[in-house]
């Protein structure tokens, strides 16, 4: 079958992308597989200036998942473009920049800079990070703020597709999706991590220095599927689904409820060649199930 998918003009060789924050700047994975094989990769969230992130410890185990409070440590957009982007095979796989900023105007400046860089295929706007004190998830929890950020980014990003990444930490994710699509988002991606906590009864301490972190991994897959399903009913733009994908069957589940592509996050920590293997497994499963086209299969859940 033709594995290609199209997200608002962005053509991917297959629907498997890697999720921001779990695949570094891509270069870290060159020892583990051919980056060209991936449909796309979303790099670590970038801010205008480098950020140091949160204190340690930043990660903890959770049943069938993990918690993180990295706090968007990153080398800054300029360093990424100058020092990392050229090391990526961006002619052969889509490199998507994930954006983080503290205000709508800062988001716009960042979008303006990144959208001009050769090698970046799309922007993913992170209005959903639960691990930073200013901005972060707040933008993603208020429809009018989310719309304002989306509009500001769209205004300054020219032709480049803008994907807005949604948080599950809201009561009605479909209305958030509608708000950003009405404001011009070309696509939406979901879900970011669920706000969560882990504590130690013996030491009486939280397991993360930040106390609260984001839950990811298989534990959140049912929540993610529900969110993608609800959003697919509410908007007409392509959806990139993620949350707990650890198998080719999981990928199909997301496409079945309406996703056009998927991102693999925490599973990259199960083994660093995970996403590369998933591309092959997906092709094999599609064959086995006799799926003939993504257009027929997408959203074909029988309820």
């Amino acid at each position: 079958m033709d594995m290609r998918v199209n997200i608002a003009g962005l053509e991917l060789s297959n629907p498997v992308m890697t999720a921001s924050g779990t695949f570094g700047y891509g270069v870290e994975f060159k020892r583990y597989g051919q980056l060209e094989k991936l449909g796309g990769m979303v790099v670590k969230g970038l801010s205008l200036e480098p950020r140091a992130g949160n204190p340690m410890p930043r990660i903890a185990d959770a049943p069938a998942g993990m918690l993180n409070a990295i706090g968007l440590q990153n080398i800054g957009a300029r360093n990424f473009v100058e020092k990392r982007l050229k090391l990526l095979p961006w002619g052969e796989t889509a490199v998507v920049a994930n954006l983080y900023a503290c205000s709508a105007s800062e988001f716009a400046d960042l979008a303006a800079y990144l959208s001009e860089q050769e090698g970046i295929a799309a922007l993913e706007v992170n209005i959903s990070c639960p691990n930073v004190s200013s901005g972060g998830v707040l933008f993603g929890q208020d429809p009018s703020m989310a719309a304002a950020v989306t509009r500001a980014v769209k205004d300054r990003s020219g032709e480049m597709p803008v994907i807005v990444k949604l948080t599950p930490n809201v009561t009605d994710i479909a209305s958030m999706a509608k708000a950003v699509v009405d404001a011009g988002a070309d696509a939406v991606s979901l879900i970011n991590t669920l706000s969560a906590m882990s504590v130690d009864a013996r030491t009486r301490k939280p397991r993360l220095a930040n106390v609260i972190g984001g839950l990811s991994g298989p534990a959140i897959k049912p929540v993610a599927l529900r969110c993608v399903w609800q959003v697919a009913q509410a908007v007409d733009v392509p959806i990139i689904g993620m949350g707990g994908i650890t198998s080719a069957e999981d990928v199909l589940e997301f496409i079945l409820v309406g996703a056009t592509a998927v991102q693999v996050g925490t599973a990259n920590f199960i083994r660093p060649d995970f996403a590369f293997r998933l591309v092959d497994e997906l092709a094999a499963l599609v064959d086995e199930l006799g799926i003939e086209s993504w257009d027929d299969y997408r959203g074909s859940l029988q309820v």
Partner: protein
Amino acid sequence: MFGNACQDTTVKSLTRFGKGEGDGEFIELTLEHPGLDNAAWKLWKPGQFVMVRPESFGLDPLMGRPFSITSADEEQGISIFFQVMGQGTRKLASLKPGEPVTLWGPLGNAFAVRKDTPTLVLAGGIGIAPFYEYVKRHEQPENLRMIFGHRPPLACYNWERAQGVCSCEAHHETCRQDLMDFIALIEETVPQYCNDGLIIACGPLPFLETIKKVADQHGGRAQLSLENRMACGVGACLGCVCDHKTEGPVSVCARGPVFWSDEIEL
């Protein structure tokens, strides 16, 4: 040539040390060598580590676990030496020969080797794991002095393996006074290597903090191997960082695990 540094292998053997004698379990786990597709295995050096994830982890725990490479040899296999701490190491301890394990590495940097330099090797507890091979490979073992501080009995640590190559002293801590004596020994010995010697250390954080403090006081530099909690092991998640004095937070897995003591904050 392209080679995937993440490989599937199987358990070759498990050897338990000092069982019944100490608190906790100490195990040498040997995995079948995955072959030299990954040429880095030919060049591995003591101080480097691997991420290990047996299939039996299932989804819980989800993250692999980092361990120093104790030895790696195409015929003998790849060995790690670990102490049972929690859910991950408990699952490792119950592996049987033939069970599947995913292994990625060798990862990180290694301890410096200066053949003609007096070298102080400081090991605290399971922190001895990278040093068996370090002392064995050293070209001038007469320049080495290894000091090993431990709480569980010596039988837990396969101590024979360290013996016979260089000067090795073990200090058993059974009470508070033993600890004070051990700290005094470090405070007295480290300065002797601060001018033109080399100090390398691996062990629990308070142990490394003491070494750093003494080295800093005497204007010396020691190499410390850090054991931060890790998820990816490859520098991607930024979960394992330590504070580098000039560069801010850096990944321990990718930039370390071995750092010069005066370059980092503990």
